[in-house]
């Protein structure tokens, strides 16, 4: 990633375009256009949306919680690519230009409920379908303490533990856009996290879910998921590992 020039001057002007839709009033989505003066290059897109909501148009609806890239609730399409609004700096989008044009839309592939808020239920339904929880029916070790694991075994699924379920990967995936019965990259990342955990015993079930018609085979290695992930998880690689395990039977 290129270095962003840091400056605290509030000398940017942003031409912000936001995809708006209120199902109770609008028959079709429309573009809300807002000119914001005195923007700092260190402001995030979330800061801009807050400014619109708090000082210009209180009806603008969006999801966010932590504002620090941890909770994964404010993924949206920013200048055409999925990103967390709270992590995307104006400086990165400015690219040396001032005024800066920024376009914000809800993520694709999920039904829009209002403005930037989409219905996440289809996404979480896929998430739940991969049994995203620890399965081990054996009694815990005799000393009653933790089930141990070597650092090498931990390393196998380290990358996929970083997922915050923001849906940036799944909603950037053309296979998911084409057919939302596809379980999607995020659910595969979650399955990966448990399949390769040496303490977990549910891998056979999970692999058989992954091997179904709308599991990993729907992945066409487009790599949009890997590009979109705000946690830099190598999503396509994780999917490839699951495909390999299904083919060879080895975990």
């Amino acid at each position, binding site marked *: 990633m290129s270095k962003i020039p840091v400056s605290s001057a509030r000398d940017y002007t942003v031409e912000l375009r936001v995809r708006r839709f209120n199902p109770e009033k609008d028959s079709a989505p429309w573009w809300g256009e807002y000119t914001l003066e005195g923007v700092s290059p260190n402001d995030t897109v979330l800061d801009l949306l807050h400014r619109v909501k708090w000082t210009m148009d209180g009806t603008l609806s969006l999801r966010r919680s932590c504002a620090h890239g941890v909770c994964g609730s404010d993924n949206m399409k920013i200048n055409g690519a999925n990103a967390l609004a709270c992590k995307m700096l104006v400086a990165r989008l400015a690219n040396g230009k001032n005024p800066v044009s920024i376009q914000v839309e809800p993520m694709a592939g999920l039904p829009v409920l209002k403005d930037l808020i989409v219905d996440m239920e289809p996404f*979480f339904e896929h998430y*739940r*379908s991969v*049994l*995203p*929880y620890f399965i081990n029916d054996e009694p815990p070790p005799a000393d009653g303490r933790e089930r141990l694991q070597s650092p090498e075994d931990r390393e196998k699924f380290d990358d996929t533990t970083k997922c915050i379920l923001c849906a940036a990967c799944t909603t950037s995936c053309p*296979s998911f856009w*084409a*057919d939302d*019965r596809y379980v999607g990259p995020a659910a595969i990342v979650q399955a990966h996290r448990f399949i390769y955990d040496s303490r977990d015993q549910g891998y056979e*079930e999970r692999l*058989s*879910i992954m*091997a*179904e*018609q709308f*599991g990993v*085979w*729907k992945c066409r290695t487009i790599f949009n998921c890997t590009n979109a992930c705000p946690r830099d998880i190598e999503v396509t690689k994780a999917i490839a590992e699951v*495909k390999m395990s*299904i*083919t060879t039977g080895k975990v």
Partner: protein
Amino acid sequence: MTTITGTPSEGVTTRIARLQARTPLERYGYLFMRLSGVALIVLAIGHMMIQHVLNDVHSLTLEFVRQQWTSWGWRTYDLFLLIFAISHGFNGLRVVLEDYIHNPRTVRFVRWFLLIFTIITIVWSAVAIATFDASIG
């Protein structure tokens, strides 16, 4: 939001049983695409080299083919190229179409149609390769 419980819900359990019983078409399809893809890299590049690099396209006449097909080795080569290229191509087309066609009955129709088309194309061309009379000259 629905809470996640410690054991699979009944829906999920029945789903798993159903899935395990199903033939893993996509799994073998995927493996087939990888393996035939590797075969095609060798076969198609070899074919390209012979027809377009080592030989001038303008000399690609019936006589050229006749001479090549006096050897059963080359006939076998072309037969493999034919089988892999057609089946790899049509399976790829099936996969692309199934991304966008969601009606199960249409999907079934597309599958059978492409399968029959693939078999007819391969058999028909294989007969041509096998029965070609290389002695005419």
